[in-house]
């Protein structure tokens, strides 16, 4: 995982360029990493779409078994966590470290709640006989959603590390690249869920 602190981004003593250049380097590197994630998630989603086109009746059965309420709540949780994340960055850019910690705490709590509700959803589906190996649907459903859930868990842990670093005075209004890079990750996870929510649960 990327260094959560990225403290050296502010250290200009090693001849690696200005703060802005180093921040740009971090962002470029992280966008390239996100591109690899795009490919992985796109392939998983494509597999589901192809199955959906071939077996629409099975998808309808699953939709009726699972319902949309729980997933809709989860979607709101993740959207709200994304808002909390960017508001934390907004506060830090105004020099309000306590604001950053407050918003990020909300973000982490919502992310953890998302994972908890996803577990409840999996239990519900398992009770309906829909498991990883129950039929050809199982892998196509659980692979993208569980892989996304894993990303949420990583994001929550990363968010906690950012909070810890902020408590130690690790960021300032001018030095926020560590938060920005984490934000790219968290918002990407949100975007992936926006697509998964529509493709897997709504259509």
């Amino acid at each position, binding site marked *: 995982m990327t260094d959560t602190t990225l403290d050296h981004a502010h250290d200009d003593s090693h001849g690696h360029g200005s703060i802005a250049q180093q921040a740009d380097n971090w*962002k*470029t590197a992280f*966008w*390239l990493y*996100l*591109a690899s994630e*795009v*490919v992985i998630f*796109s*392939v998983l989603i*494509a597999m589901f*779409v*192809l*199955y959906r*086109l*071939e077996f629409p009746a099975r998808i*309808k059965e699953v939709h009726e078994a699972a319902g*949309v309420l729980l997933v*809709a709540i989860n*979607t*709101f949780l993740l*959207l*709200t966590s*994304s*808002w909390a*994340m*960017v*508001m934390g960055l*907004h506060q830090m*850019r*105004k020099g309000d470290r306590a604001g950053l910690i407050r918003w990020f705490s909300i973000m982490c709590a919502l992310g953890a709640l998302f994972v908890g509700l996803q577990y409840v959803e999996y239990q519900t589906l398992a009770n309906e006989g829909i498991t990883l190996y129950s039929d*050809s649907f199982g892998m196509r459903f659980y692979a993208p959603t569980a892989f996304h859930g894993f990303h949420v868990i990583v994001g929550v842990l990363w968010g906690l590390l950012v909070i810890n670093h902020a408590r130690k005075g690790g960021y300032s209004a001018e030095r926020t690249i560590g938060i*920005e890079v984490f*934000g*790219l990750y968290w*918002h*990407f996870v*949100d*975007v992936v869920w*926006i*697509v998964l*929510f*529509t*493709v897997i*649960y*709504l*259509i």
Partner: protein
Amino acid sequence: MAQVHEHAPAAFTDKAIPGTEKEAVDAAAPHNHDVTVIMGRTLPFPVYTVVFGILAAITIVEVIISELPEGTIGNILLIVLSLIKAVLVVAFYMHLREESPLYTAILVVPVVLVVIATLFLTSVPLGNY
């Protein structure tokens, strides 16, 4: 998409272009960072909150559409709405509207390639593989 401006530090939003409405707004309220001007109206929230409101509203609409009898128009609408949500998050929360076009290319190129590959796959009989 609605024209949205946030009054915020230069590094945080689009740089004001000389002669534009944004420059005029920034000059009029240079210290107000928590206000959003959208289609001439000033809202007492940061742009992030306005975007969140739009995302939440779209999600409610999506859920309502999904509960209606299934149809092609509804499915197309759901896809369009989800794309709007994704673009909003990427543009405003991931700040892509302020960043180098290179980042946009990094994001879009793999998506386009996978969509093309998927379209090819749809022409192949799947069976229960």
